[in-house]
């Protein structure tokens, strides 16, 4: 079996559900050994694309190859080489965590003894050893998601699909999951990750494809996309309007960017590159000059604004779901 240079290739994928188009000419190439982030709002077609590539869904037109095999002609070969961890934890809720991992190991045709040993290793690795014999249905959201990921790693997949892996997780569980994904990538697995959060794509992905209305509308590294989206801004309100010009001077000197000020609401705004560093520096400098600050925020462009800048048009996805 040969390693191809592209682990995932999708060309012109089309899929509609009873007349409603979900994918309308979806193209994607993921080089072997890299992490690709599919970024987009709910309903953009990310999950549909992943389900097609994981052989769960038939499509109407186009071609797709995963790990060197055509998903339509040789779905079994693809299945042997991929792992899928979805938005809804795909584990058996009645069985215990250990029983789940042994079951999936047996279904991947590991001998019983090997399946048991592998289950124990994964339970340790994902911090589930203490709850190994409890029903998966009684797990917290974070534990269930970790079990779900562990179930995808019983045999190390050549390509791993992660469909919104951290949606609904608290920050600690999210960081743990990110760590697990990074160590997997270090071992050579190709990862295709869908997310609604630019930060998540930024943390994990080598390249990001922005998806909207069933198509990839922008593509690039995180830095490239950010440059096109525009910077984060620091916005602050000073207590005394008389100090506004002085404050503006200080902020301009610290951030180096053009400062806009609004005298009526005593507000200053400036682009920042190093978010937290800039915040600390600005606050320290203002304090040194005895300028009192009433309010300060770091603001990122919303995904909606990002879409506007990347594509020149508003996202067709539902408004309330977007966030960066």
């Amino acid at each position, binding site marked *: 079996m040969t390693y191809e240079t592209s682990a995932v290739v999708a060309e012109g994928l089309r899929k509609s559900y009873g007349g409603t188009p979900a994918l309308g000419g979806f193209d994607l190439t993921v080089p072997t050994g890299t992490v690709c982030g599919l970024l987009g709002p709910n309903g953009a077609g990310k999950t549909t694309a992943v389900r097609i590539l994981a052989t769960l869904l038939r499509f109407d037109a186009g071609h797709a190859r995963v790990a060197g095999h055509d998903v339509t002609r040789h779905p079994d070969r693809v299945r042997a080489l991929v792992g*899928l961890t979805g938005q809804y934890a*795909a584990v*058996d809720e*009645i069985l215990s965590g250990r029983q789940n991992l042994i079951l999936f190991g*047996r*279904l991947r045709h590991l001998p019983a003894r090997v399946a048991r040993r*592998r289950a124990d290793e994964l339970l340790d690795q994902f911090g589930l050893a203490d709850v190994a014999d409890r*029903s998966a249905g009684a797990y917290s959201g974070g534990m269930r998601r970790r079990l779900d990921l562990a179930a995808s790693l019983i045999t*190390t997949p050549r390509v791993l699909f992660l469909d919104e892996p951290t949606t609904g997780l608290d920050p600690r569980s999210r960081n743990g999951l990110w760590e697990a994904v990074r160590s997997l990538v270090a071992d050579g697995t190709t990862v295709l990750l869908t997310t609604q959060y630019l930060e998540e794509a930024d943390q994990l992905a080598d390249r990001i494809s922005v998806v909207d209305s069933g198509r990839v509308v922008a593509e690039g590294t995180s830095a490239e996309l950010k440059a096109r989206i525009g910077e984060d801004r620091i916005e602050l309100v000073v207590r005394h309007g008389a100090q506004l010009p002085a404050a503006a001077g200080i902020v301009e000197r610290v951030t180096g960017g053009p400062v806009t000020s609004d005298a009526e609401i005593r507000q200053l705004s400036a682009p920042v590159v190093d978010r937290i560093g800039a915040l600390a520096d600005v606050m320290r400098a203002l304090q040194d000059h005895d300028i009192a600050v009433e309010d300060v925020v770091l603001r990122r462009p919303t995904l909606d604004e990002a879409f506007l800048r990347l594509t020149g048009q508003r996202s067709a996805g539902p408004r309330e779901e977007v966030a960066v």
Partner: protein
Amino acid sequence: MSTAVDSRRGAAATTAEARTAGLLGRLGWAVADGWVMAGRNMRHVVRSPEEIVLYFTLPIMFVLVFGYVFGSGMAVPGNGNYREFLLPGVFVMTMLYGLGATASAVAVDASRGVVDRFRSMPMARSALLTGRAGADLARAVLELATLVVCGLLVGWRWRNGLGDALTAMSLVLLLRLALTWVGILFGLLVPNPDTVAVIVFPLAFPLTALSNVFVAPDLLPRWLGAVAAWNPLSATVAAARELFGNPGIGGESWAAQHPLVLAVGWPVLLIVLVAPLAVRRYQRLSR
């Protein structure tokens, strides 16, 4: 992570094996995967012991209610013992109602995310269903054992020796296997697992009424009698009565004259027709 690398090599080896092994190998894996899935379903029962109670209550209730409440008002052809006449019918009726449990278990499975994992793994596509059929057959053996014990307690006997009795029980289990596949297909067709139980009863009840479980088909209006005589349940009940040496109904129709042929033929026909449909339906789930 040396273990991960090892297991990758393992995965490559197993896929290579699977490809060279060909059709026979695929069949072997299908059986192995089905066996693993049957084990999963049985572990479900072990983890929820309250369900085991259900296994025993329905058979016991059927024997008591039909044996004592209804039995007091019924006469058997040839003045036989009513409860001896009744028990083979209750065996078959219990098998029929097991279809409901099968259908809801499949419907619940199909509605859960775990099915996505099964479908994205390199396992036999039939395994989820054959595993269900295997586990439910094991359940049926337990139910039948309960029925036999209850039957013996209320005066039912087998009179043609153990061999014939075991043959009769095998026929009852064969029917259950066929009904299990009907239940599986049904569970895959209903959109909502909650509605399964509500739909199964009105469908199952007329099937028992229009059979020889309680009455002789010859006593019914002509066309209804024909339906009852050819009912697959009737075939198994009549064959079981014959093999157990219990009082039977007899009848003029070809079906009534050849219950053994039909008791094998009907279930085999049902399995051959319904099982491929169910597997096909499962493969097309959410597609």
